[in-house]
Every structure is written in structure tokens, then in C-alpha cells.
């Protein structure tokens, strides 16, 4: 069980998630401090660790549109946030999977900040509203990367298979 800590609309760009002016910072250990940097209050709470790991961001269509900057996924991963969106932009979705950021596609999602959410099997249950919504499973091709623990271990495995 986790709470919705931020509710967003459609077309949330990577410039909103991780503003371009912080792009010289690249390491996943350093990017979390700039997550949603222009949402000052939310960013401060994240930095003060007032938002528990596993907390949920709910968004509309096309979350993560725009730039390919991986910082947009790594900064959220650093806080172990979970994203439930009606849809994701392609590069962001792939970056999230590659880094092990938890993302769920839920076209009908209805939730507000403060709502209690449980993700169970292929369902999102909004306990506060007493409603549940179906999740669209990620393509099987991407599941292999998730199962391996991300793209780095998956590539390492493939590399070693090739060399042996």
C-alpha cells in the first residue's frame, strides 16, 4: 500500500521531470536531488526524505515526452518512486525499464493526491475511492530486462554468453 504524492496531467515532459539546466549532472547517485526541481515544494520534500520510498506519482498520457535524457528516469529511481500513467513516451518508458524504475500503464486510472493505492497483479486498487483499474502489462520483450534486474546486468549476461 502506498500513497499518491503527486498528481499530474498529460504530456509531462522530461524538462519538467529533470530540467535541462541540470544535465551536466549525469550520475544516478547525483541526479535525484534535481527531480522535479521546478516544483520547489515537492522537490524539497524529496530531498528531506519526507516522501517514503514506493510513493506514487499519477499522470496522464505521454508521461516523459521530449528529450532522451536518462536523468529523468534515474532521478525518480533514486527516490524509488512508482509512476502510474495513462501512457508513457517511448524513450522514457525504455529508460525506466532499463534502470528498474517501476512504471505502470493504466489507461483508466482515477486517483488524487493522498489516495491510498495498492497494485495487485494486473490491477490498481484505489482504496480511498473504492475503485479498481486494469493495468496493461508491459511487452514481453521488456520483461526480460526487468527480470534480469535492469539493462546493465542483462547486457553483461549477453556479453558473457557471447564470449563463452
Amino acid at each position, binding site marked *: 500500500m502506498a500513497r499518491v504524492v503527486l498528481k499530474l496531467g498529460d504530456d509531462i515532459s522530461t524538462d*519538467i521531470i529533470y530540467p535541462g539546466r541540470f*544535465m551536466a549532472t*549525469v550520475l544516478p547517485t547525483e541526479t535525484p536531488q534535481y527531480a522535479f526541481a521546478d516544483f520547489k515544494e515537492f522537490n524539497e520534500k524529496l530531498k528531506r526524505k519526507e516522501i517514503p520510498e514506493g510513493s506514487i506519482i499519477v499522470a496522464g498520457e505521454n508521461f516523459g515526452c521530449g528529450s532522451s535524457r536518462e536523468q529523468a528516469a534515474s532521478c525518480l529511481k533514486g527516490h524509488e518512486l512508482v509512476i502510474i500513467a495513462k501512457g508513457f513516451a517511448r524513450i522514457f518508458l525504455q529508460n525506466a525499464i532499463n534502470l528498474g524504475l517501476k512504471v505502470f500503464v493504466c489507461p483508466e486510472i482515477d486517483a488524487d493526491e493522498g489516495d491510498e493505492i495498492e497494485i495487485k497483479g494486473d490491477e490498481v486498487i484505489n482504496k480511498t475511492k473504492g475503485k479498481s483499474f486494469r493495468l496493461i502489462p508491459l511487452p514481453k520483450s521488456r520483461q526480460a530486462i526487468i527480470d534480469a534486474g535492469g539493462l546493465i546486468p542483462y547486457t*553483461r549476461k549477453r*556479453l558473457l554468453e557471447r564470449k563463452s
Partner: protein
Amino acid sequence: MGMTIVQKILAKKTGQREVNIGDVVEPAVDLAMSHENAALVINQFYEIFKDTGLEPKVWDPDKITIIFDHRVPAESSKTATNQKKIREFVAKQGIKKFHDIRGDEGGICHQVVPEMGYVRPGYFAIGTDSHTTTYGALGALSFGIGATEMASVWALGVLLNVEVPPTIKVVAKGKFNEYVGAKDLILHLIGRIGAEGANFKVLEFHGEAIERMPVSGRLVLSNMSVEAGATAGIVPPDEETIRYLREEAGVKDDIELVLPDKDAIYESTIEIDVSELSPQIACPHSVDNVKPVSEVEGIKVNQIVVGSCTNGRLEDIEVVAKILKGKKVHRNVRLLVFPASWRIYRKALERGYIKDLVEAGAVIMNPGCGCCLGVHQGALGDGEIALSTTNRNFKGRMGNPNSEVYLCSPAVAGASAINGVISDPRKIGG
């Protein structure tokens, strides 16, 4: 069964006779492009090799290109240190297609790659930049990926888990009116289908307006296809593609044209009559908030930007220079011009465009991404409005969340620079 260009390229790059929509493939990579974010790619690349006992060597240094453009020259010690780390890696790995901060061969990656002839029809090219879709203008399948994915490509030479995407056929018929062109067409299309209208799909451009369009315009279409969410935006290669590669990029070896089959299956078809188009403007804060110029004419602007991987080419600078020749940039406006590469800069100098622009009051910046992504040069003040030939107007894109960005063609930028307000270039005399 007939195949689209993307199917044909993916079949070729996986050694298969055909691939179907939805198949998962691992295509061999012809070109892997990165800019300053290679610093992160390098970090992830070494992570992959950690504890494997294998020497961290890239799969093929000749298929990797690294081009500094996002922050050139470095705006901070952090960037300078990233660039230094990349230079060391490039030397160690023997990467020759490296473009440092130099006036002879530098520039924006999406201009340098085409003009150097690094990409060809039928290539599979990927880059750690979302606008890598640009090379679709030359008949390649190309798109942006993340840094960790690039590290994986550097190690393996293939891109893992590519799902063969469906294709939307865009048919552009008719003839453009004066001062209306590729930028207006792509803005119109994005406005029509929306910022997620082509998510996980490919746009394939057809029709007489595309056949007549020079590569410089096709690069604009492919570049901004990603703003409709498209995985790629591809123009079937033709005589014009060959002309560009031979005459402008100096390609000497064989060029193979990979074309869609006549009976290729498209998910849908969108028809646009370009003769009905007027100059188009993308209004704040999304690229799909597109209006004809008549609806936003007269809005005061503080800064006008001409440049970027979308519209910093010689033809773009030419349009602006011709509109401004002998005139003055309005006193309330700063006009910043970023040629997309140093090759373009030199040609613009030779043809006198730079002189005309500077005499009119424009500031010529060094080639690079400049203020497009708000990290370097040309920041906006609180409440200020920019009009820009770049590709994104998201809130905070140019570095200040309390500013607004309108996107337009070079012709609109030139006309507006004279008036200090968003203007229709068709109403400017001479």
C-alpha cells in the same frame, strides 16, 4: 506481403527476409551517436564490464560518433570535466568520428552527421538524443535511446528488444506558398495528431511536396517527428537524397536505396494539401498547441532565436538574412542566430548572410545547441517571451519556468525580428 521502410531496414539488419509489425528484433547498428551525455554512457559502459574479466572495448569504434554540441564551449567546470573524460575515452578506444569544439568540423550533432555523410539510406542509426530521428530524412531508420541503452550497444553492437513499429503514411500534396515550408508542415501535422499522436509508430513521408523538397527541409520533418511521439520519421530516399550525399556530404562509395514496397501496409494515411498551409506557430507550453500565424500576430517578443538541429541550416539563415538585409532588428528584441555547424557558418560568411544579419543587429552565436534547451547562452528573464525556430516549447525549456516560448519557421522569425511582435512574413515587403 509488402513492407514499409522500417520493416525492410529491420529485416536487413537482422538478416531476415521479412519482419512483421510487433516482432521483437535485435538489429545490428550502423551508427551510434552521442554528444556530451557520452559521459554517462561511458560510466554505464564500464559498469557492464565490471567483474566480467573482459576488457572494456567498444564493439566497433568506426561505427561510433561523438559530437560536442550541447554546451560548447563548456559553460561550467562540471561540463568541462565531462568533456575531458570523453576525450580520454575517445583516444583510448580509437573513435575517429569525434567532433570536438573546433571551427573546422564542429557543430550540432544532427547537422554534422548528415553533412559528414555518416548516415546513408537503409542505415540503422541510434543516438542518445531524442532528435536522432533527423537522419530519417536520408532514408535511414534512426531514433533516440537512453544512455544505458547506448552503453549496451557499445558493448554488443546491436540494439536489444526492438519491437517492429507500425507506420503512418503522411501524404503531402500541392505546392507551398511563398514563406511557407517544411517547418509549417510539420508543426501543422503535430497540431493535428497531437504530441502523442504517433507514439510508438513511424511516420513515413510521401507526396509531391516531399519529392520536391530539398534534404534541408526533409531534415526538419524527420527531426520534429519525435514531437508527435513518433519512433522515427522517414522520407523514402530518391535522386535528391543521392544529390545531397554526393554533393554536400562528399560520399563516394555506393548508395543503396531502401524503399517501401508498393503494397506496404500502413496503419493509417494522413493527407495534407500544403498549398492550403499558412505559417504555423506552436504556442506555449506544448508543441501540439499549433495555430496559424493570423491568430497570434502582434504578440510582443523579447528574444528571437534562429538555430538548432531543426532550423539552423544555411537555407534557414538565408531566409532570415534576406528578410533583414538593410533593415533593423526592433529595439525591444534580441535576435540570436546559431548556425547549426561551422561548415554552415563559413558558407553563411562567404555569402554575406552573416554581415547582413550583424548589420541589422543580430548576434551571431557559435554553432551548438545554444539556448534551445536552457543550459547555455541566451537565458530568458521572468515573464519574457521567446520566439524560436527550435523544436520544443515545454514550460522551462529555455531555462526559466517563468517564461514562454513560441515555435516558428525562420521566415516568421525574420519578419518578427523587424516588428518586435509575432509577424506574418507574407506581409513584409522586399
